[in-house]
């Protein structure tokens, strides 16, 4: 299934890690995958955007209005990146307040787990529960285990599960 996904946040929120987890899930399934990432100056607390394109694509970038799905770790980025998402595309946000899209206060949950950065995996959990992504729970768990530093693997999986089971 061809899928174009954006992951949006600010530097230091774990946008790159979340991007890698999703892309690794595609690799493990044997699907071609391309991602693009923000590095350098912009990563110093500024707005960052990653794209993920699963299945047969040549370019890592996503055109305006073509993304099937947006995962936003920073609510204020909605005004910056929403134009990339198709009108009928999925929208999942880390947000404490009400508004468009499916929302979860991932930062609060992550803080409860002892590390605000885990909000990225909490949000992934929500998106997987809603079956918004090409991949399933097991595939995400495998990818998280592959990519997380060993001593944080359990905590990362816990964050993912909190997102999965949150109502």
């Amino acid at each position, binding site marked *: 299934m061809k899928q174009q996904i954006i992951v949006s946040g600010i530097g230091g929120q774990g946008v790159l890690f979340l991007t890698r987890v999703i892309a690794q899930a595609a690799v493990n399934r044997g699907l071609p995958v391309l991602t693009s*990432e*923000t590095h350098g*100056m912009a990563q*110093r607390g500024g*707005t960052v955007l990653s794209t993920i394109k699963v299945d047969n*694509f040549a*370019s*890592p*970038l996503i055109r305006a209005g073509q993304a099937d799905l947006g995962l936003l770790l920073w609510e204020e980025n909605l005004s910056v990146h929403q134009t990339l998402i198709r009108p009928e595309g999925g929208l999942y946000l880390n947000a404490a307040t009400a508004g468009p899209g499916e929302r979860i206060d991932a930062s609060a949950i992550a*803080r409860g787990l002892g590390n605000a950065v885990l909000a990225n995996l909490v949000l992934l959990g929500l998106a997987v529960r809603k079956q918004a992504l090409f991949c399933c729970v097991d595939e995400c768990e495998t990818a998280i285990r592959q990519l997380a530093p060993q001593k944080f693997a359990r905590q990362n999986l816990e964050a993912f599960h909190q997102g999965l089971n949150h109502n």
Partner: protein
Amino acid sequence: MKQQIELLMGNEAIGRGLIEAGCQIAAAYPGTPSTEILQAVIDHREQAEEPLHIEWSVNEKIAFEVALAASYTGKRSVAVMKQVGLNVAADPFMRTAYLGVKGGMLTIVADDPGPHSSQNEQDTRLFCLQARVPVLDPASPAEAKELVPLAFELSEKYEMNLVLRPTTRICHSRQNVERQKPLKLERGANFEKDPTRWAATPAFLPPLHRRLNAGLEEIAREPGLQPRLTKGDGSRPRVALVASGIACAHLVDLLDELGLSGRVDLFQVLMPYPLNPEFSARLRQDYSRVLVLEETYPVIELQLAHPGTVGKQDGAVPREGELAPDIIHRVLAAFLDLPAPPELPVQKRGQRPSLCPGCPHRAAFYSIRQCFPKGIFPSDIGCYTLGLNLGAVDTVHCMGACISQGVGFYQAYAQDGEFPTIVVTIGDSTFFHAGIPALINAVIQQARIIVVILDNATTAMTGGQPVPHLGLAADGRKTRAVAIEPLVRASGVDFLEICDPYDKPRFEKLLRQADNYIRGEQGGVAVLISRHGCIMDPAVRKAQPSWQVSVIESCVGCRRCVDAFECPALSMDSEQNIARINPDRCIGCGTCIPVCPVDAIVREETS
């Protein structure tokens, strides 16, 4: 085979490709978007079949010269840098084109169309045209990796230095990439002396130049590097699309989306210089209209000299910025008479980058600004460029320019009489890169300036590569440390102080002393080393005390902490008109506490 597929960033793929191709000497200076290439060589070094020397050189010229000499011994070598790094290495790079190499030598230069984190959008391919150096332009991470061994082979066949030019969207993309077994070349170092070549004086250069020109004519016809044609179905006769690099990848996806794949002839150019003259002739003969898509300058277009070209020269393709897919859509629609795409929504900028919460540079900049509200502040390339946000950076030009600019400002004012306080800020890595000659010049020219060396013991902007005063080699082994202080003293600086900028009263006292010194009878250059480790380093965070910092009711909403101190952990609650601290971002350094004029920022000890 399945276990050999890995998800790699373009830079990692290139780094891995270097090891697979038997490269034995790899030298680089970090710079976005090139940095992770050498890091990948470091990370994969255990898989190399033969000894491998890896170094973070102090600048790109040195990296190039180290790799060059290694190639003279017959071994494969690489110098890695970003596009503006090639300017620093330009001197040896230009001469190498004439003298050539022995063992395969690649210069990998990452370009930054956009630009995302650079001071310009210069096109390394055009630099190569000027230098007469063949250059390869990959369209994906996987292709970049595939071109590495081929480039080494051709470098050896033609005894030429070849350039591989990935761009940001290749460097920082990830793709499933296939692993190969690293080559075992079993080469011993064997430098064959030939002063007529390796020390060529002007008399020997015309024949070397002739040889270069002959080589270029041959390599332009190399079968493996010819433009790759995806034939159309003939429905659009005498029309061709020519694209190179990531622009070609964008075009392929766009054609697919528009249902035009395989409908129009598409050439992917792998080697933009030297372009095969037969290809140019064929395009002139077989096609009336040609759209050329390339980043950033019209390198292919200039060489094609096709009268029906649509591209950057006639303005049909934007002459600046990244050729993002939406831009290519607009260009393609106009070229092929397709319905014009809807206007793009205005791009909002989002959150601007800023120095990290707790960054020692913020404390230093704030003090500098406080002490010298009317000062002039030349600065340089690195995280500390973000001192812009604090009004403590007035100029940023190129690596190492700040000290010389400080001298220029001083001389211009001093000849009129009075001079303002000029506070130059330069990071530790930049100081080693290009600051030392500039400091010596400032001293001998008797400039009266303050130079603050922002020493956070790392190359922070690019992710923390080791710096010379750390005593660590690229692979983490211990090496001799080269301290900053004796270098400063040996440069002839008499005023030298060192201070942690977290200690605001002392730091400001030293700044004022420095100002008195430069204005005294014997005054000259004053150097203050602002020393505190980068807080991106977990060990630094752990070692420093941390407090629970909060804003109490006495806050009057003056915004000084938000505007003038600009810590991203601080924001304004506009409804209540008070400052707030975001606990997820605050690291509890307490450097904001003395900033508040009404003492409304307070701390409780937690650890």
